[in-house]
Structure formats: C-alpha cells, structure tokens
C-alpha cells in the first residue's frame, strides 16, 4: 500500500492512503503531536472532514487496537480484562501513593482485595514480590483482581 506524504508548512505533515474499499483517508500529524484522522468527501475529493483527533498516547493505543507492530511504544496503562479478572499496570510517581513504603505497609490485599503480581523497575523485574518489598518512584506495578478491587488498588498505589 502506498502512503503519500505532504508537508503542511507551519502546521505539520499529512499522510494519505486509499483503502481497498475505495475510501481515501488521511492522517494529519500536527506540529504539537496531535493526530487528526480525516476522511475525504467522495463528491469533492479535495475536501476533508476530520473524523477524530487524538493525542500521541491515544494514537499509540489506537495503533495497538488496530493490530500495529510490536515496535510501537509499550503501553503501560492499557487495561486487559478477562471475564471478571482485571489486570492493570500502574506507574508510581515521586512522592505519591505508596512510593517509599512496603507492600505490607500498604495493606493492599486486605484493603482492596487485589494483589500485586509483579513490579518492573528499570531493566529488572520482581515477579511475586513479598510483603516486605519496598516501592520506589518510577516502579511499574502489575495489579490483578476483580475490576473494582483493581480500581481501589490503583487509587491506593498511585494516589
């Protein structure tokens, strides 16, 4: 499939493709990083209508949903849910939530019902961390449980 690139000086870049269904669509990547997906009017092929506009992070989610490549940025906040079982990744920010405290001190399991399944810290991962595991800023925490319990745990962790 061919992708046509057109520069829009001062605004960004526009990419056009024609689908096998004969529709023409374009993606305008604006200078501020926002992406606008436009559809062309079949009666006036020069005229477009913005279908939707997404921020870079949202565009990454969209790419994943559309079956994008593995190379795209890892999504840390995409929730996956399998019949009553919810899994969510939470990033701990400096000075918030349970940063600097242990899993045990947080009473995550007893207060929320969800469990901390794994923690990823930089290049290393800690599968099944014990109650004396201390959270640090920047940790990526994988929480599992029922949807409402995961919600409460995320609130507690990221607060």
């Amino acid at each position, binding site marked *: 499939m061919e992708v046509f690139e057109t520069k829009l*000086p001062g605004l960004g870049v526009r990419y056009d493709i024609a689908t096998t269904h004969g529709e023409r669509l374009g993606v305008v990547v604006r200078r501020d990083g926002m992406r606008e997906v436009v559809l062309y009017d079949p009666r006036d092929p020069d*005229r*477009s209508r913005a279908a939707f506009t997404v921020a870079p992070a949202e565009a990454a989610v969209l790419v994943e949903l559309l079956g994008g490549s593995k190379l795209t940025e890892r999504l840390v906040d995409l929730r996956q849910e399998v019949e009553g079982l919810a899994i969510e990744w939470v990033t701990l920010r400096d000075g918030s939530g349970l940063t600097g405290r242990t899993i045990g001190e947080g009473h995550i399991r007893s207060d929320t019902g969800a469990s901390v399944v794994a923690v990823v810290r930089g290049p290393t991962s800690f599968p099944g961390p014990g109650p004396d595991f201390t959270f640090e800023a920047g940790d990526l925490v994988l929480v599992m449980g029922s949807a409402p319990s995961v919600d409460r745990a995320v609130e507690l962790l990221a607060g």
Partner: protein
Amino acid sequence: MLAAGASADVLIELGIVLLVLAVIGRLAARIGIPSVPLYLVAGLMMGEGGLIPLDASDDFIRIGADVGVVLLLLLLGLEYSGQELRDGLRSHWTSGLVDIVTSAAPGVIAGLVLGWGTIATIVLGGVTYVSSSGIIAKLLGDLDRVGNRETPVVLSILVMEDLAMAVFLPILGVLLAGSGVVEGTLQVAAALGVVAIALIVSIHFGSHVSRLVWSRSREVLLLTILGLTFLVAGFAEEVHVSSAVGAFLIGVALSGAVAEDGRELVEPLRDVFGGLFFVFFGLQVDPGDLGPALVPAAIIGVASVVTKVGTGWWSAGRAGIGRGGRLRAGLSLVPRGEFSIVIAGLGVAQGLHADLGPLSAAYVLIMAIVGSLLMRFADDIPLRPRLEDPRGTV
C-alpha cells in the same frame, strides 16, 4: 523610579486596556470573527475624546506597542523552519511571484492614483500584499480544512510571503530611514546580506544554534530568546533598519527545538503586547478620518479579493485541485491582519502620508472581517459544474 501616583495611573490604564481587549476577544470568538480588527476598533474608540481617555503619547502604551511589533515579527520568523522556507522557494516560487505582483498591485496603483509619494505607495503595496497567516492558520483549523488537498497550496503561498517579507522589510526600513541614494543602496545591500546570513544560519547551522540557545529550563529558554531578540531589534533600530526587521531575522535564524519551544513560550506574550500594538495603532488614527477612508479602502479591498482569489485559483489549479478546492484556496488567502498593520505602522511612525494610517486601518478592518467570512462560506458559493471536469463524475 516613578512617583506612586504615576505608577498607579499606568497600572490602572494598562488594566483597563487589557480588560477591554479581553472582553472584545470573547465577543470575537463568540461571533466567529478574528480579534485583530476589533482590537483596532478598540484603539479607535479609546484616546482623547473617546470612551476611554488614553493618550498615544503615554510611554507605557508606546513601549508596549514597540514590544508587540517585535514579538509579532519574532513569531512570524519562527513560524516556518529553514527547511520549509527552502522547500517553498524551490517548488512554489512561481506562485509566490504571481502573488507578489498581483496582490501588491491594488495598493501600489491606489498609491499612484492618490498621488502619494513613492515610499508611501510602496508601504501601501505591502499592506495589500501580505495575507494574515495568523487569521488564516486559525481559520483553517476552526473550519476543519487542515486535511484538505488545497491547504498545502495555501500554506506554501504563506511561506513565500514570509520569505518576501524577509526581503521587503529591510528594504522598507532603509527607505524609511531616508538616506541618500548611494548610502541607501549600500544599506540595502548590507541589510540583504544580513538576511542571507540569517537564512543560511537557519538552514545549515540550525542545529548548532539550537544547541547553543536551547535550555531544558523553560524560564532560561524564554529569557535567552527574548534577550537575543530585543538586543538585535535594538541594534537594528540603532542603525535605522527598524526593530521589527531585527526581531524577524532572529526568528528566521532560530530553528529546530528552540523554534518549537520558543513559539509556545512567546505566544502568550505576543498576544498581550500585540494587543497593545493594535490599540496603539488605532489610537494614532482619528476616528473622524476613518469614515472618508472607508470608500477607497473598500475599492482597494474588492481589487485585493479579486487578485488573491485569482492567485489561489491559479496556484491550486497547477497542483491539480478541482474547482471547489481552487475557490477555497483563493478565498483562504483574502484575510489581511496583523502584518498589514505592522507595515503600515512602520510608515505611520515615520510620518509618511497623513492618510496612510486611516486608510490602512479601514482596509484591514474590512479585509479581516470580509476575508474570514469569505473563507467560512467558501463552500456555499455555487460554482457552475463543468461537465468535462473528470472529478465531477467520481
């Protein structure tokens, strides 16, 4: 140190002016027209004998307006990267040339017919030439036309106008300084040399300059950019080449990350001081002179609509755009605004023809409002469908 009373007066006046602009800005957004013409009206209504007694000789508003021009031109220079300027020059120079000739013509002809001097005539040509990239870019976004196929044509003409300004402003600066032929020629040559250097720096050494100027701290970056700009603008003024030109060249020379971040940082400041500049320009025009200027301004306006639509129609046709898109491209070039006022302001500051201020103000008032309305309703203008147009059958 100002006396306490004087300082209080300045703050109160500044507060009133900015609040009036804020109310007007809200109104403009509500009814969907650009704010620049309304700011001018605000300036016209203020001043001695006006609704708000404000004096154009007040230091604060004069200095604010000077800063406004500098920031407007800095952002104009920052708007396009050196790469975009080069690409534009390479592939759209014919459209740019057609645009210069046809769009400056209404102003130049009017200047000749009215019997104005050479320099005032050139200034008026500049006023009718330059489209308002601010109004146009905003409307393209608002009207959901950024993805349209004729939009790159419109934008490349704006890029060419930007480049033309880089040549025109220094020449105008020298002409306005009014030195002799020999000295003037030398000054023009020197000024154009500086423009060439700024462009070369931007295109070939942009990354080096960026690295030198850029800072992770937004505060430091803003201070560096503003410091550089005011310094160069001041020196340019010192050698009689208008501070606006100096600021514009700094904008052209900065590129890459500095330009990206700089634009974002300077924009809010530009809105404040640019607003003061439009008010200041309005203050210098006697509302009584505006009425008689409306008829000639409207005539020049009609001619300008025709030439800009012609330019856009022709350029879009060359890019293979259909009739609807060609009309939209043409109408999108009609709005005039901030830069017409800047050019007129340079002339008014030098005390050129007495009618220059009122005529330019009337012209921009008409063209900003009519131009944005034409852009908005471009698709409602019926075009005779042409049967042989292959696009019509799709």
